[in-house]
């Protein structure tokens, strides 16, 4: 085996291919917020010198419980965000009154942004309002072979009248999942479902008013959410890959928390739109 590897290495060097880039580049520091904004937002100045905070007793086990080979499920219920009233989805350019029981909020964590058939979701987070609480269910694969079971579980949670809610999911998460269902030769359960992609109404309403319309901005502006020890989305692929290659499961917990916050913010933003609609409908 190594004979071929050596030979190929030699030939590639002769062909002028530079050796593959070494270890992944360290994450870029996010720009600090200007002082005035930080004050406005009530964010405390953090000591600049403090090293990244290690959560004491970061668990080493994989998050959630194993429900199929290579597939974990994390489930949680929270009181926030509250269930929105029934609303007319005109803000999302959908002419229908939506019963909140039909809503399925979803957000994926993926192995990258390259697109095409080589990118996969390793975590699918789903939120809905169930028995009076906000329910989060996160599917996480710990082996590549677990993907089929993850897709099947996810599909089983979607009723034919489900209304999807996402942030940029129409152009990112949904096509990506569609590709994965295709590759596993399964029908795509997202096909034909109503889909409220909150990115677009947010853009329509606040484009130009905010520095951008990313979920992190929207949740801060609309919900005053402040994330704690958040794993930047861009680092999620490395966290999962590290685990897959035999590394620690520690950072998977941070990925799960990040995804969970995304889901709750999604619920909060939706509530905000739905409540606005409700208020205007009452006038």
């Amino acid at each position: 085996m190594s004979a071929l590897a050596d030979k190929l290495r030699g030939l590639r060097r002769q062909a002028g291919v530079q050796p593959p880039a070494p270890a992944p580049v360290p994450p870029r520091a996010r720009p600090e917020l200007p002082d005035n904004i930080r004050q406005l937002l009530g964010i405390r100045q953090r000591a600049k010198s403090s090293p990244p905070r290690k959560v004491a007793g970061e668990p080493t086990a994989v998050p959630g419980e194993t429900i199929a080979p290579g597939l974990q499920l994390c489930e949680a219920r929270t009181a926030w965000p509250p269930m929105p009233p029934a609303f007319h989805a005109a803000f999302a350019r959908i002419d229908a009154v939506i019963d909140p029981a039909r809503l399925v909020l979803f957000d994926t964590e993926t192995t990258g942004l390259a697109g095409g058939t080589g990118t996969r979701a390793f975590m699918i987070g789903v939120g809905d309002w169930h028995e009076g609480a906000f329910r989060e269910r996160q599917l996480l694969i710990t082996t590549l072979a677990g993907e089929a079971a993850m897709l099947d579980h996810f599909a089983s949670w979607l009723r034919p009248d489900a209304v999807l809610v996402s942030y940029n999911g129409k152009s990112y998460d949904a096509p990506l999942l569609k590709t994965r269902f295709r590759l596993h030769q399964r029908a795509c359960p997202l096909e034909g479902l109503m889909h409220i992609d909150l990115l677009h109404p947010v853009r329509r309403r606040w484009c130009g008013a905010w520095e951008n319309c990313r979920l992190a901005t929207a949740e801060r502006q609309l919900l005053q959410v402040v994330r704690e020890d958040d794993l930047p989305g861009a680092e999620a692929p490395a966290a999962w890959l590290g685990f897959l290659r035999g590394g620690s499961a520690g950072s998977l917990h941070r990925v799960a928390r990040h995804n969970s916050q995304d889901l709750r913010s999604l619920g909060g933003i939706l509530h905000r739109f739905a409540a606005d609609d409700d208020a205007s409908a009452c006038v």
Partner: protein
Amino acid sequence: MNALPNPLAQRAVRGDGALAAPASGGDQLARRLAKRYGDRITGSFVLPGREGQFAALPGDMPSALAQALRSRGIGQLYAHQAQAWNATAAGEHVVIATPTASGKSLCYTLPVISAAIRQRAKALFLFPTKALAQDQVAELLELNQAGDLGVKAFTFDGDTPGDARQAIRLHGDIVVSNPDMLHQAILPHHTKWAQFFENLRYVVIDEVHTYRGVFGSHVANVLRRLQRVCAFYGVSPQFILCSATIGNPAEHASALIEQPVTAITESGAPVGEKHVLLWNPPVVNPDLGLRASARSQSNRIARTAIRAGLKTLVFAQSRLMVEVLTKYLKDVFDNDPRKPPRIRAYRGGYLPTERRAAEREMRAGQVDGIVSTSALELGVDIGALDVVVLNGYPGSVAATWQRFGRAGRRQQASLGVLVASSDPLDQYLVRHPEFFQGAPPEHARIAADQPLILLDHIRCAAFELPFKDGELFGPQDATPWLQVLAEEGVLHQEGERFEWIADSYPANAVSLRSVADGNFVVVDRTDGRQTIVAEVDFSAASLTLYEGAIHMIQSVPYQVERLDWNGRKAFVTRTNVDYYTDAIDYTKLKVLEAFDGSPAGAGSAHHGEVHVARRVAGYKKIRYYTHENIGYGPVNLPDLELHTTAVWWQLPQRALEQAFDHRQEALDGFLAAAHALHIVATVAVMAEARDLQKAVGSGDGAWFATPDANGRAQLRSAFGEEGAPMLGPFIPTLYLYDAFPGGVGLSAPLFERREDLVRLARELVQRCDCRAGCPACVGPVLAVDEQNERSLKSLATRVLDLIVAL
């Protein structure tokens, strides 16, 4: 397609006849030129005209399609089109290799449209250029409209807007694209094309003779990936390929798709008589062997033809030359601004609308003279012409015929003239009319299992669909390659599967036109531009992109100002110098393993693996035409090494001692013979001259020989050291080797044809008009030896005589 009774073309012919009946046909012009310029014509022959062979429209064709054809004036098929119909109906993969303008496109449109009408079956068309793809779609749409067939055809290329792509994926019955798009956009997103693939019935690949060498080896691997994706969707489409006339259409087509292919090579299309002249510009300076420029001759021939009322097309090798020749002809024919122009230029770089307008005018017969680059070589429909003039040899005999094929009417003789430039290859070919007669000598070759190309495509294939342990890719077990990719971290092995895991899009990093990804880009900085004008393979960079080098791009000279070796960039500016540069490279080869060998005359010939070490020590400035050496420059670049395949010839010491007085003479002869063999070998395998390299040295790598300023051999034992101890056995070796790491399959066919090559090289040297040697035979001779006994020419002949088959 223009040989078909296409209503437009017919109108053009009629309009023509009505306007002004040509004073003479191509035959009369050929006779006039031969009479007046007999000493410039090195070859002249006539291909007789042929009656058409026809067949009825197949009865099993959908009636709507038959109606559409009839309404376009097509009431019957040519024999080869009917043959293609029957072969595809029998489920065979087919390659159609008939001359230009024999109506090849109907061979594939008929089965494809029939299947689309009957089963809503889909087809993928691959063309090498966007212009051809657009033409094809226009033609399909016309046919579709004529019969109201309801078949939807779209181009899908880099210019297709994003919002149209979704519709094309879902609704296109026929998607017309190119290999690069298939490689970079379609296959890596195949799930979006799921419906298309599930119904894919035909894959049509036109102009397959252009898919040879490195490009062809890549395309063969893209087709492996296509077939792998098709298998995933449960289909195995039928392939219909088209080729210009080459020596091995069936073999080449079958190498590309790795399945048996039925070849259809007899055209049933009627053709008029065709005259061909090979034209060498006259010698204007006998001392220096300097000839008049090809441009002046092409201009003269075109002028004569247009004056005689013949529709004339001139092919030039570069865009610049197109503009120059157009200007010369316009100065003569378009000096009255009130009249519509009679002369048009046609080349890449014009806007599509401008090109379409030019094509329309040509079809309608409003233009008398067209000057074009290779853009018109492939099947763009421009109607019938009388005369084709090639300003320089287009690089292969197949391309020469394809260009000549542009001229031809049924009732009237046509003429093709090849005007040789001063390039050694041109000079060689123009003196060998036999290359243009009889069977096409050239074989298209690919090496689909070239290790680096294979690695690139297994990488791309793994991105598209996971691999299973032991899965084949082409005939190869992919496992070892997968393990290499897993070590690199782009694949993850889990159980029996290798799955893509990296956050990258590998197809973007794989160019179908180079081996591996170390290419240099050439950046033009002229007048504040900062644009990429060319890409150069890593292995050629040190030979052509050193600082000070004159780098020719489409015959336009640029000077390299700065070379950023690590950044893989060369910065150049336009220049007008009267010299070119030639790298002084020291190349040392060592035989690693002989795969095969045989006696060759008094010596032996072998084929095998070699190690090449090369240093570019400096460069020479050589004045055009006179080949005077007018200066030197230093080069300081890293040494290159490469493992590749080669063919080599050796002579035993005894034979050498009998034939030569000194070792110096023997070495001179070897270097000169290498020059001649390199020329004929380049022609034989349809290679680019730089993809195949030559060298002379010892078989064990102990020393090597390079020509000095006088064309005489200098012996070196190591880089930079002159002279070598002449102890031990003296076994000079002449190598021709693939210039790519791992080789690209050029040397095996050279070994097969080794006896031909030596014979041809000997003829080349003996028949050359020069006295003591010149770049067209044994290489530049700067201080000419007056003693013929010791001239490079006679020494080369002696070496070739010793290795020629007895």
